[in-house]
């Protein structure tokens, strides 16, 4: 049973991706018997290439896919370099996990409230500095270059990369490396950049590729902050897919293949750039630069991170303010009055989306935790680590969601599967499993193997050892992994929309649907609800084990 777990897990992760990608190939070349399209050819591609603005859409997707990870990586590296060995890093680790729990859509809405022409930032400056008595006619949100969209993505990807980096750093002994370089006369930040960064980067590569795949094919953030004329390619695919004219699905299939090509080229370009930057880096490193630019790097590293995370926190605060705001005229800094009216109006329609959200989260998280724990326990009983499987775990995160999920939906329609909670739950677990694995693998492997050996010499079978020794000792990391799984499931927009055929409504689909036409206060209420559930999960995951082990001192240090 345990032996099957790794295979079951990889099957679950890889088969749907392969099936989904295969399912879009034939329709992209004009073959979709269900729609009486049986003459293969290149007409679909001709039509796609003649679609107005298609080049611009593709360029938007590609540039978002490259600039988002680049900016996020630079900020994270600079921050880590300027705070290595200080208390900052520790404080940041506490802040990052709850920020990671905020769904993409909620963060994007909050950011919109902050930077929109009638948003909080300009209200603070007006009318004193700008003289504006009315919101200026500026295209800040949905700007044609997609800058707001990329900013929204960067805000969410930075906590992710930071968490990955903070988890990877201890194994590199950064303090020792920095001290060594400092004794050779390098200032601390350069010492970090020259000795720690090159070792850290390889450990961030897979997460970075996941960021590329997500940013180049995002739908929910693009719907909220992205350009509209034309939107990025991923949004157009969804538009064609939901078009009443079913023949548009051929077009959507070709566009999904194009999306795959764009994401893969972004990853390819990144790899080429890696090689060039590595060469340049080596040259600088061997050039022996020790002192220059230290103050600038120090200020930039800390302040940029404070600004980014501050913007994210402020965005969340704005969601709270808007959710209780009465009439709020521009340029007043705060609403004139407060009301709970928005909550009452949402309350009546809340039940179905909320219960769907919780059911889906529960289903996919339980499935994921069972699979991941079984796979890790199998590995631990074998006594050998199997790290080469990491790539397989990442597959659903490296292939653009919109491409394979769309294909999967086409396939399921042809098989006449009834869309419903069960199917959507399976789709969620495609993304929940990898994150649960990433969260749990490290603490599971780090558990001192002597506990298991000791238990065996005392006569306990492997199963008894697992139930009575390992499970309780790993309770805190397993609880955290559950919270991560829940948060990932709640954040899923595309998987819910496509495999649920638009009929399964969750907090996230409701919130994103309001992007066009919802009032700010209603949006704020939904976005807050959408953030509150995963936050609550993290609070429980941290406090419950602490409470449970309140009389066991050595169990309290292990909360990761």
């Amino acid at each position, binding site marked *: 049973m345990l032996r099957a777990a790794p295979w079951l897990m990889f099957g679950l992760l890889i088969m749907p991706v392969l099936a989904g990608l295969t399912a879009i190939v034939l329709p992209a070349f004009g073959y979709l018997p269900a729609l009486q399209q049986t003459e293969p050819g290149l007409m679909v591609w001709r039509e796609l290439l003649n679609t107005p603005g298609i080049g611009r859409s593709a360029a938007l997707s590609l540039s978002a896919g490259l600039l988002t990870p680049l900016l996020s990586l630079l900020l994270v590296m600079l921050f880590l370099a300027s705070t290595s060995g200080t208390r900052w890093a520790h404080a940041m680790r506490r802040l990052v996990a709850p920020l990671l729990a905020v769904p993409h859509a909620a963060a994007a809405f909050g950011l919109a409230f902050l930077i929109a022409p009638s948003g909080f930032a300009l209200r603070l400056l007006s009318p004193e500095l700008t003289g504006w008595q009315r919101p200026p006619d500026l295209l800040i949100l949905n700007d044609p270059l997609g800058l707001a969209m990329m900013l929204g993505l960067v805000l969410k990807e930075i906590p992710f990369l930071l968490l990955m980096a903070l988890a990877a750093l201890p194994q590199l002994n950064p303090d020792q490396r920095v001290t060594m370089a400092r004794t050779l006369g390098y200032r601390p930040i350069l010492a970090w950049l020259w000795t720690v960064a090159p070792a850290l980067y390889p450990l961030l590569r897979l997460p970075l590729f996941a960021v590329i795949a997500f940013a180049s094919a995002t739908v929910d953030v693009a719907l909220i902050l992205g350009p509209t004329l034309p939107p990025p390619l991923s949004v157009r695919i969804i538009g064609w897919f939901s078009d009443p004219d079913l023949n548009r699905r051929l077009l959507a299939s070709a566009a999904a293949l194009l999306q795959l090509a764009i994401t893969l080229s972004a990853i390819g370009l990144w790899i080429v750039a890696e090689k060039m930057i590595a060469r340049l880096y080596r040259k600088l490193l061997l050039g022996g630069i020790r002192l220059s630019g230290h103050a600038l790097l120090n200020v930039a590293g800390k302040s940029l991170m404070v600004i980014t995370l501050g913007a994210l926190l402020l965005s969340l605060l704005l969601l709270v303010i808007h959710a209780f705001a009465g009439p709020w005229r521009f340029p007043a800094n705060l609403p004139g009055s407060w009301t709970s009216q928005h909550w009452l109006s949402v309350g009546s329609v809340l039940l179905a989306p909320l219960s769907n959200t919780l059911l889906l989260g529960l289903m996919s998280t339980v499935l994921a935790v069972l699979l991941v724990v079984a796979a890790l326990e199998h590995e631990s009983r074998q*006594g050998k680590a199997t790290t080469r499987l990491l790539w397989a775990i990442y597959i659903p995160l490296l292939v653009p969601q919109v491409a394979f999920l769309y294909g999967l939906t086409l396939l399921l329609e042809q098989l006449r599967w009834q869309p419903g909670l069960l199917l959507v739950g399976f789709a969620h677990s495609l993304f929940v499993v990898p994150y649960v694995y990433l969260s749990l693998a490290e603490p599971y492997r780090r558990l001192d193997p002597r506990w298991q*050996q000791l238990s*065996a*010499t*005392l006569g*306990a079978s492997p199963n008894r050892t697992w139930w*009575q020794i390992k499970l309780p000792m790993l309770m805190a990391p397993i609880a955290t992994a559950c919270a991560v799984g829940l948060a990932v499931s709640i954040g899923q927009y595309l998987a819910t929309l496509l495999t649920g055929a638009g009929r399964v409504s969750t907090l996230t689909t409701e919130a994103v649907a309001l992007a066009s036409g919802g009032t700010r206060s209603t949006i704020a209420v939904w976005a807050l609800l959408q953030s509150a559930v995963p936050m609550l999960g993290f609070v429980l995951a941290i406090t419950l084990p602490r409470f449970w082990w309140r009389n*066991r001192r*050595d169990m309290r240090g292990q909360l990761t």
Partner: protein
Amino acid sequence: MNASRLTLKNIDIRLHGQILLELDTHVEPGAPLTVMGPSGVGKSSLLAYIAGFLSPDFQASGEIYLGERCLNGLPAEQRKVGLLFQDPLLFPHLSVAQNLMFALPSRAPDRARLVEQALQAVGLEKFGHRDPATLSGGQKARVALQRLLLSQPKAVLLDEPFSRLDAHLRQEIRQHVFQTLRDAGLPTILVTHDAQDAAASGGPVIELK
């Protein structure tokens, strides 16, 4: 207690094809065998091989007999070989008494009384409900030994169990452990790089290089 000797027949442990250790000997109850040598010569691998959890990275051969019973091929939990590690390793999520209860075979009658007696034997009868983290180093070492005895082993392996103790405790705990194991009549192998451990054991010594 029925005591039977521990026989090690043509033990040969290799890592990446390189021989770490060769051993052919037997251990009588009451005469602990001390295996000495610097770190990295495979002392701990020898104990792991006997106890049954040598990592598959090693290649090992040779037969292990406990009395007439061949241990090769048995999983660790069926070998009835107890092990004391460098650290006492009291399970941090269980109370002191629960640690002892965990070791007790399930068929043992009147489990609570046995645990109580085991604590009494080392003067810790008031400590059953305590969090092991609140015990002193010496108390932890005693509980670890009582836990091992409650699991009713037929042989005992000691992996430098005194090396982490403070100097003033080391002598006392060492005496206590050897005396207890001698009284129990258990064949014992001690792995150490401390010559005083070897002297205190009062049994044969093998030096590895």
